[in-house]
């Protein structure tokens, strides 16, 4: 802009001073700019360039990696999960934080309460992930959540007596453990032996006696439900052998024309009998309730629930953060407005909705946007909590990017393409936040 610096500068000392100031400014900014260039700008440019090359980095492939990205079902799944995270987690966290901040303002021991809620922030994601991985275990003996769920469930529903039992195949009983077993047609006066297997010797009730089928009354049916397996040899299938025990406590129904007309429970030797049945043909049914598998609790880490479960863990870590930030905003609210509203007769709910929330809006927005950016890059929780078989179902963009680049496939071309996508998704939130900061500063 200055074509003849020496002549003009001599003529205009003010201009020279300005130039010096600018140079000085540039000199001061240079280290920061260099660092920024080396640590931020260069990697971004490099990633964009790298995303146009193949896995080995030798061959230019143009937009192939981006095409592959939208064609690959695993990446699409990661994209969908990331979307779910962004939609759900920040909104929930901001809401929860607001609620807790408003509530803790009113309790005694507010500081202690806040401290406890804030504590998880001091736990690393890695440690939190390991803790929740254990908490979400399916086995109620290990996973605390399922221990609670199963405990509550079993308090209301009696567990079935023989969860592992199955009828011996091809010995007169048709059906399956899921819908019960039914025998062939029987006339009053006949005896039925109903063979079952798959019950461990230790699982047979202690009072069980050797199986025995009683003689039926002329107008009745009788028989035995027994464990058709002799320890050590197996025994003859479908025949009551010497050492084979009855299965006490089984429910057996006599069915006529598809309707149960009588119900019996087996005795210690597995025997049961129905008396006083009318003439006709009957079937014996051993209902499914006898075999219902024990309630195993919720499959937290199964393909369907794994992402919500991880979001839950994330909430645990971050609720304190949003609560404290919003709490600080709340403390700075002008008290006179609130008092004026109270004097005017507004109730607490009105105050919350019409005054607190609108006045807090700037803080809420900052918390929300910060969380959106944070949620975009969530990695450790997903990586630690998701078990191998459902990892693909739990992946978000960040984990997918890492796995593609370094987790075995070593396709850093595709990985770079994913990181560029991630960058593009974060940019709007960044721009929004920076704008807000600027507005706040001016």
């Amino acid at each position: 802009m200055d074509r003849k610096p020496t002549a003009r500068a001599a003529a205009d000392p003010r201009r020279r001073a300005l130039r010096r100031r600018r140079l000085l400014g540039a000199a001061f900014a240079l280290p920061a700019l260099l660092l920024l260039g080396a640590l931020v700008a260069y990697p971004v440019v490099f990633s964009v360039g790298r995303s146009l090359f193949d896995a080995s980095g030798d061959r230019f492939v143009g937009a192939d990696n981006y095409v592959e990205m939208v064609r690959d079902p695993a990446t699409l799944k990661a994209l969908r999960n990331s979307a779910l995270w962004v939609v759900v987690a920040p909104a929930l966290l901001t809401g929860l934080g607001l609620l807790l901040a408003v509530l803790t303002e009113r309790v005694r021991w507010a500081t202690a309460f806040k401290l406890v809620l804030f504590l998880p922030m001091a736990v690393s994601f890695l440690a939190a992930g390991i803790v929740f991985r254990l908490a979400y275990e399916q086995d109620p003996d290990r996973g605390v959540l399922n221990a609670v769920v199963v405990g509550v469930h079993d308090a209301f529903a009696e567990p079935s007596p023989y969860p592992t039992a199955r009828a011996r195949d091809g010995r007169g009983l048709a059906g399956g453990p899921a819908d019960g077993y039914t025998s062939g047609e029987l006339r009053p006066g006949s005896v039925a032996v109903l063979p079952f297997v798959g019950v461990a010797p230790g699982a047979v009730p202690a009072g069980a006696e050797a199986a025995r089928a009683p003689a039926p009354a002329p107008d009745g049916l009788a028989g035995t439900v027994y464990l058709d397996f002799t320890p050590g040899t197996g025994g003859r299938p479908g025949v009551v052998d010497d050492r084979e025990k009855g299965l006490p406590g089984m429910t057996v129904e006599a069915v006529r024309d598809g309707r149960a007309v009588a119900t019996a429970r087996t005795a210690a030797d597995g025997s049961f009998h129905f008396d006083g049945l009318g003439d006709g043909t009957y079937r014996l049914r051993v209902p499914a309730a006898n075999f219902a598998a024990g309630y195993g609790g919720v499959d937290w880490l199964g393909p369907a629930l794994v992402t919500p479960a991880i979001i839950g863990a994330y909430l645990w870590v971050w609720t304190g953060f949003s609560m404290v930030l919003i709490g600080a905003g709340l403390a700075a609210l002008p008290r006179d407005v609130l008092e004026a509203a109270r004097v005017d007769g507004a109730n607490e709910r009105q105050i919350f909705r019409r005054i607190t929330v609108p006045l807090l809006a700037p803080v809420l927005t900052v918390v929300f946007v910060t969380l959106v950016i944070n949620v975009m890059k969530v990695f450790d929780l997903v990586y630690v909590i998701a078990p191998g078989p459902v990892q693909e179902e739990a992946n978000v963009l960040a984990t997918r990017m890492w796995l593609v680049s370094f987790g075995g496939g070593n396709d850093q071309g595709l990985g770079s393409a994913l990181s560029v996508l991630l960058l593009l998704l974060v940019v709007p939130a960044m721009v929004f936040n920076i704008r807000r900061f600027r507005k706040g500063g001016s």
Partner: protein
Amino acid sequence: MRRPSLTTLRATGALTAALALALTACGGDADPKSGGELAGTTVTVAGVWTGGEQKNFKKVLDAFSAKTGAKTVFVPSGDNVSTFVGSKIEGGNAPEVVLVPQVGVLRQFAEAGWLTPLSEKTATTAAGNLAPVWKEYGTVDGAYYGLYFKAAHKSTVWYAPDALEQAGVAEPKSWDELLASGRTLADSGRPAFAVAGEDGWTLTDWFENVYLSQAGPEKYDLLARHELKWTDPSVVTALTTLAEVFEDERLVAGGAAEALRTDFPGSVEKVFGPEPKAALVYEGDFVGGVARDEFGRKPGEDAKFFPFPPVGSGKAPVVSGGDAAVVLKDAKNADAGMRLLEFLATPEAAEVWAGAGGFLSPNKDVKPEAYADDTARATAASLVAAGDTVRFDMSDQAPAAFGGTKGAGEWKLLQDFLRDPSDPKRTAAALEAAAAKAYGN
């Protein structure tokens, strides 16, 4: 699969394992005897071994020091050997000898030009002791680089003897017998197999045993190199055979859903733990070690194994793996390193570790009485007897993206297959698609 060292198995998660590695990551020295032809030279050895394995290998190194006077140092490399060795070479600090746990890594080293071929003497000693197949797995492009020192036997089915006795069945001798015995076991109230579906590598081992026996070693080799497509009918047949186990609730304890939540140590616990829920667990010879260390069982007494039975008209499979010793070209004392390999090729070296336990040698001149217990003796005998029909773990030979990555490739697809074994053809097609991508051919 990634060969699980005992320490890694003991750790409940990868993170704990990493921590354990960091804690044990200190070199070990062996005092050289004064004199000896190599007195004053130092041989550095890098390997993945930690814990007991490391301790026992140092005994072997001590024996070498006592013999030659060389000073030996063992450096744990962490799980990623190639990254470790690569950085050491670049830093001008290459170890003399590296113990490479996977065939694919050996090939990678050789292709990078890092290795020195075995000396004449080592090669001759090895040729006398090892079946030719071990030489083949140590050879890359015609040059013999890797001397197999420690082997794994991955065709053993472990069982709790009391369960088989209770059900009145004997060790099955064929696949059909295995299925029938398994169902009888289920009838007796103890479902047959604990399958570790949460760890993908155990499923690849299942498949490899069935495939090796059913399709034969030639096809196995072709498939391992991906010169045969996974859509080949032989693969579909093997998957169908495997589905006979996977789809049967009587054969898989708790059904597929529970299997998918069971990791490898968990599957051993289901058979040998305090509350047994299954009778059989299939995996390598290291199951015995876990049953002993974690659950106080005595291998050979209350934890026994039978060889994976032959499938159809095939021979009984012997799937194996091992650690190969290689000498790095850029090391300072590469010649002394080669002397160590000469020593490792002798039965004498193998017998040192065999006596300490947790070790199998592919060396056929190792005396059976050198092994610490009957189980090790029996697995070693089976491995040596299989001679040239031994095949290496296929997923170890594949690129990691296909055969060695959690939640991807073969691991993931076989887990999906365990969840829903109804369509072997679709699984085969998916495997082919993933393999084509990873192999790039």
